[in-house]
């Protein structure tokens, strides 16, 4: 399949930019720690679109972007595992996963 002729690179980049900042917005507005985590996953995936698209469209001579995306996925998995462990820890201590209530350390 030859995508270059059909779909310009810019479409891909704009798509990833939108997903990245939608994910960021998710992190900023959702009051539940788990949904914040979902926003972070969206951001990481947006970055992956960038890597893959640049690799495919511009620099197909090497697979740098592809492998970077692969590594990002692995790290995202580790991050999610740790995040969930910490969220459960918060749930035990605070009996809630609402981010608004986790603000005892301040000023």
């Amino acid at each position, binding site marked *: 399949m030859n995508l270059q002729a059909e779909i310009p690179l810019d479409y891909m980049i704009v798509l990833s930019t939108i997903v990245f900042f939608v994910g960021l917005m998710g992190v900023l*507005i959702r*009051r539940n720690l788990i949904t914040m985590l979902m926003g972070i996953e969206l951001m990481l995936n947006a970055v992956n679109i960038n890597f893959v698209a640049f690799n495919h469209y511009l620099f197909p001579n090497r697979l740098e972007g592809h492998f970077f995306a692969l590594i990002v996925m692995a790290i995202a998995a580790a991050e999610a595992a740790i995040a969930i462990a910490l969220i459960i820890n918060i749930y035990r201590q605070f009996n809630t996963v609402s*981010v*608004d209530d986790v*603000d005892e*350390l*301040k*000023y």
Partner: protein
Amino acid sequence: MNYSYTILILLLPVLIFLFIGLMGDKMKPQLSGLLGTSGLFVITLLSYFTAFNFFDHRVDESFQAIEVFQLLWLRFTDSLIIHIGILLDPLSVMMLVVITTVSLMVHIYSLGYMKGEKGFARYYAFLSLFTFSMLGLVLATNIFQMYIFWELVGVSSYLLIGFYYERPSAVAAAKKAFIVTRFADLGFLIGILILSFYTNTFDFIALTDLNGLAITQPTTAVFMGLSVTTWAMLLIFMGGAGKSAMFPLHIWLPDAMEGPTPVSALIHAATMVVAGVYLVARLFPLYSYTSPDSLEVIAYIGSFTSLFAAIIACTQLDIKRVLAFSTLSQIGYMMVALGVSGYGAEGLGYMASLFHLFTHAFFKALLFLGAGSVIHAVHSNLMTDMGGLKKYMPITHITFLIACLTIAGIPPLSGFFSKDEILVAAFEHNKIIFAVQWLVAGITAFYMFRLYFNIFWNHTPEYHHTPHESPATMTIPLIFLALASVFSGFVPFHDLVTSDGNPLHTEFHWMIAGPSILIAVIGISVAYMLYAKKNSKPESIATSLKGFYNMAYHKFYIDEVYLFITHKVIFYFISRPVAWFDRHIVDGTMNLIGNTTVYFSGAIKKMQSGQMQWYIWYFTSGVLLLVFLVMYLN
């Protein structure tokens, strides 16, 4: 001549400091005091020996600067190399003598004064540290080494002023002194950075060499309308102004009187506060040749400070604060003299300034130590608690009187000569400054004798214990310093310490000396009339009104006018407002800066709200803003 033994002058005090500091708890307090004192005695002898050798060896009629040691310390960049060493020239040797002498006197005096105080050993450790830093400051071969000792002086004076740490006011004063002088030092530091960047050297000899690059080819760079050199020299002066308590950075000095009195004598009379004068004198060729404008600024600041402080001194009741303001005023004199001076054969002001530094060190230390002796006897700092002490404390009384006469400028005491040279130099350069300094001479005589009469004459209050003369450890330094005050005026200074090392030809001007003696006598007489006896004049007027008109009435009438003018007009309309201005506006501005900082600190408290979503929001918005800014600015 081999001067390598001078290294001992630096090493001994630091060794004493370490020894007493580490072992002080395990020794008898008195022993640590004796140790410190005898160590300093050795250092003093070494300094005298150095001075004797140095001033005995001229090369072609002039004195050459000698770098006794010059060790490579840091190779910062290829052109900028920092050394550490010892520099001997007339200026540093003279300071060596002054510092060790006064410090020795303070050491001896403290044996009596601080007896039985908690932390006696700690006190002597700090004294040694201070002496070490001060000696290191004056012996520095380069401006960087000087800066380090400069800060060390600040640290050790912080420790000494805050010595009575049980008193909150002492702690506040120590902190204020530290922070205000540090604030000034930031100017000094930036000045050093600029200067070293354009001249590629820190070394004093290279910087002040008349044929050196720093003077012959100053940079032509301009920053905000002023040449960069002028900026650098002014910023360096800012550091000096902080340590020497020039307006408006003087606010720490009066408060610093919370420290033990001998410390005031050491730090606030003879050594640390003249560091600024020393700094300007050290870089004098650079000021004189590359930036005469900044010398002009120095002259005006000095003159203003001396007038300002003299006026405030007239209103103070705490005798140490009177002395503090008097110190400000006298250092103002020294700054004026430097400001109006030229170089070489024109260098009368330079010589006069250092001459005054020299004599002032002795008589001001004497005044402080005398005041300490009085405070020791009556357990109060306030003049109102004193009076009639001349019959209880004869030695203190006589020595204090000598000091007062000296500072007032009565011939043939030393203060007369040095002040006279300054007035001559000012007269030749700038008539307005001369007039101000002449007036200040009168005010000085007035407030010093106001102090003197209030302490030793006037009425005798009820004392809890009958005051008695201080012990010999305290009176011997007084006597020694009194002798120094009397005779130091006869040192042939114009032959020894001049701007270029060559002897300077000076003449004695009766045209200047006459009026200055006159105004001093007037000042003393006014003080005599107002304060010599318990002031009963208003009552006498009342009784005499009932009686007959006679000559006495007339005399009283004149006195009344006199009293009205001096007491009411000058006090209420000049001195009080100036003192108020100092306390509220100048001090207040400093406090305002502090309060504003604290206010802003509270205002942005909300940023750290504890809610991580806002943290993330600040993060991401910050990134976007930064991207935008850098793109826009690029």
